[in-house]
């Protein structure tokens, strides 16, 4: 199941936000809209410089589309509390992202809902200091 909705976001806030810092600019994503899909985790590519969560989504006609959601690399995901074991294949998930502008089934991962819990990969740049 797929939904797309749009936000009147200030476009530069997407480009400069440290929450979406990446080894590439965010030019390929539409920061003013959000896609939401519900499906099952196919694969969690826990890699540098970016991780990709692949989600199989069953369409109304029974066909399956694989969506890819880009997030930061392993260390930043760990800082967000998202370990590789958190999303094994087959996990039921509802996930949101800023979709690609070119129509392909990929997006910049915003957040997700798994077992009633919200997962937010963009929390990975939060600075939680060690005790002095």
């Amino acid at each position: 199941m797929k939904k797309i909705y749009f936000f009147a976001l200030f476009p530069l806030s997407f480009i400069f936000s440290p929450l979406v810092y990446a080894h590439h600019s965010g030019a390929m994503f539409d920061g003013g809209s959000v896609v939401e899909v519900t499906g099952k985790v196919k694969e969690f590519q826990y890699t540098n410089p970016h991780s990709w969560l692949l989600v199989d989504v069953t369409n109304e006609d029974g066909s399956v589309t694989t969506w890819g959601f880009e997030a930061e690399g392993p260390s930043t995901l760990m800082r967000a509390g998202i370990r590789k074991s958190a999303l094994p294949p087959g996990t039921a998930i509802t996930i949101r992202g800023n979709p690609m502008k070119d129509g392909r089934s990929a997006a910049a991962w915003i957040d997700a809902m798994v077992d009633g819990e919200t997962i937010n990969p963009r929390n990975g740049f939060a600075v939680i200091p060690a005790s002095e």
Partner: protein
Amino acid sequence: MRSHKELMNFRFFFFVISAFSLFLPATSLWAQDAFSWQDKDDNWLAKKAALQSFGEQFASSMDLYQALEQAADGGESLDWDDMANAPYDWSGIYTRTGGGLSFDPDIRGNEMTAQLTSAGAATRQRKIDQIDSTGGEYDPISDCRPPGFPRWATEPFLHEFIVTPEQTWLVNEMVNDVRRVYTDGRDHTLPEDAYASANGDTIGFWHDDMLITHTMYLYSGQYQRGTQPDYSDQVEVVERWRKVNGNTLEADYWVFDPVNLSQPWYSRQSWTELANEDNFLRIRYWDCQENQNNDIIEREDGTSQFPDFDFIENDAEVSNDEAVR
């Protein structure tokens, strides 16, 4: 009786002397203060202005470095026993404390504290125009080239800092990026033998608990993408590092670049040690080629694009982007 002209001359002379007498103690005070560490506190903006003015007194980065070296009586040598002392224990996993993508962490968005030359301002304007016209840009690190120094200071990923008596290593996990600061008394590579590199050549010395460094022989680059300026291959940097409390490292940065900066650009950089009770945060090898989905190409309009996802069989057919097709 004095003529009007004499009176005006006297008034002018009195004004100049008065102004100078006010200015001289202020600059002397700031100059003296700038040789010692300045804590960030409620008076930070005034201190920062003084540290900026301090840098502007020097014609070159090497003049500033040598003045700091002279103030340290040539600098001190550390031995392994010193490593047990808190000021030199920089162990732990750190990240940039804040500042987003601004080289000067105190500013945001379009704000700019660098005093740019006309060439530097024009280059920055071209970057802004590119984003305004296309909605994006192509960052040179998209193909996993190193960010280079001084951009190194702005990268938001994990860092480690390793102090030894003869070298200090400043590690950014991104693309396995290590800066080595030689503190064994050596000089820079001789000019006739020098060659440019992403992180250049860095020498340094200790003054009490402060590590002062000088870096040169660098590639040109940008302080960050977006509205941040560029720097030329003539850029040189003086840093003054200090562990200011149990979990924070800070560093004064004075950047000199005759092409893009009309005055040295001062900023205070900061890194915070992260909580890591379960020891899950570790710095591992950063391989940019390990996932095909992270390949990036530059589009004709100067923005970036993914050419070929491994989870889509027919990218060229389903994409509406000519660059992919």
